[in-house]
């Protein structure tokens, strides 16, 4: 407790090593929480399956986040809808509370099963038409899935913004592959997408601090 006019870092009574260590640990907690704009540490009530986390982390670029105060986020989906349906599932994401960061890139990662015969035409809607979550549904993107395994499907960042509650629902709508004379290939209700276990779908979001245009001088 020094008076303002003196330099607080210019020495003073030295602390006992234990007391100094306890103080350092307390400072570290405070510094990390302040650096992450948190008031308390997160409580992990449902630990993520390690395999799902590892599979997803492999998708994040290795190394440090690019300069310019950017963030990368992976948000895992909770899947509702019949897992036996070829598609039509609703993926619900609980996104971080938006701060001043601006979303500039979004990809939805899905794992296609080896049973995928031919090309699957996949439409991704924001919102859902399911009874419990009825609301407007807008088409975000349309993709052709031709290969089994992890698929990165680009979504328009503008279509994902504006969700104050942080809860984002996407509905997958796909047409099973058809042969040349228009008949469905393979069993009509076969599953083509794997949404369980460590193949759980997730969103990969890239954020940049500030809104577009901030920091650039505006000339009138």
């Amino acid at each position, binding site marked *: 407790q020094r008076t303002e*006019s*003196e*330099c*607080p*870092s*210019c*020495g003073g009574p030295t602390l006992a090593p234990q007391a100094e*260590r306890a103080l*350092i*640990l307390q*400072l*570290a*907690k405070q*510094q*990390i929480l302040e*650096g*992450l704009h*948190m008031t308390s*540490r*997160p*409580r*992990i009530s*449902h*630990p*993520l399956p390690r395999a799902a*986390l590892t599979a*997803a*982390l492999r998708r*994040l670029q290795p190394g*440090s*986040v690019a*300069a310019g*105060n*950017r*963030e*990368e*986020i*992976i*948000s*895992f989906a909770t899947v509702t809808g019949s897992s036996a349906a070829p598609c039509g599932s609703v993926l619900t994401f*609980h*996104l*971080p509370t938006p701060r001043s960061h601006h979303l500039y890139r979004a990809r939805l990662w899905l794992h296609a099963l080896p049973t995928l015969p031919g090309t699957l035409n996949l439409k991704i809607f924001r919102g859902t038409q399911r009874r419990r979550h009825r609301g407007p549904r807008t088409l975000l993107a349309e993709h052709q899935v031709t290969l089994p395994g992890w698929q990165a499907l680009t979504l328009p960042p503008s279509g994902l913004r504006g969700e104050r509650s*942080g809860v984002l629902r996407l509905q997958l709508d796909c047409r099973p592959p058809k042969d040349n004379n228009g008949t469905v290939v393979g069993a009509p209700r076969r599953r083509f997408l794997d949404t369980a276990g460590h193949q759980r779908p997730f969103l990969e979001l890239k954020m940049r601090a500030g809104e577009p245009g901030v920091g650039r001088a505006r000339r009138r």
Partner: protein
Amino acid sequence: TPTCEPATPLCCRRDHYVNFQELGWRDWILQPEGYQLNYCSGQCPPHLAGSPGIAASFHSAVFSLLKANNPWPAGTSCCVPTARRPLSLLYLDHKGNVVKTDVPDMVVEACGCS
């Protein structure tokens, strides 16, 4: 910048490594395992003011102005950080999302007398 030795009373960098396990935070901070929480402490006699080089903190500019207008500033010279670097963190947030970010100015690399 010298790292602090017990016998060194002058401005120096005091190094501490904090392991997140020690904080009980390994469940939500995935990477790294810990980080350097260094800080600056020690005396800054007048002849060391402004050495080594200009301190990175904002009030070094104030001291420069004071020096320019009054060679003997009324305040004291402080031991402050002169260089810092960000800390890359991979962590789980309150909603279970995985976040990768760089927290700026988290690790003190060098100290000096402002």
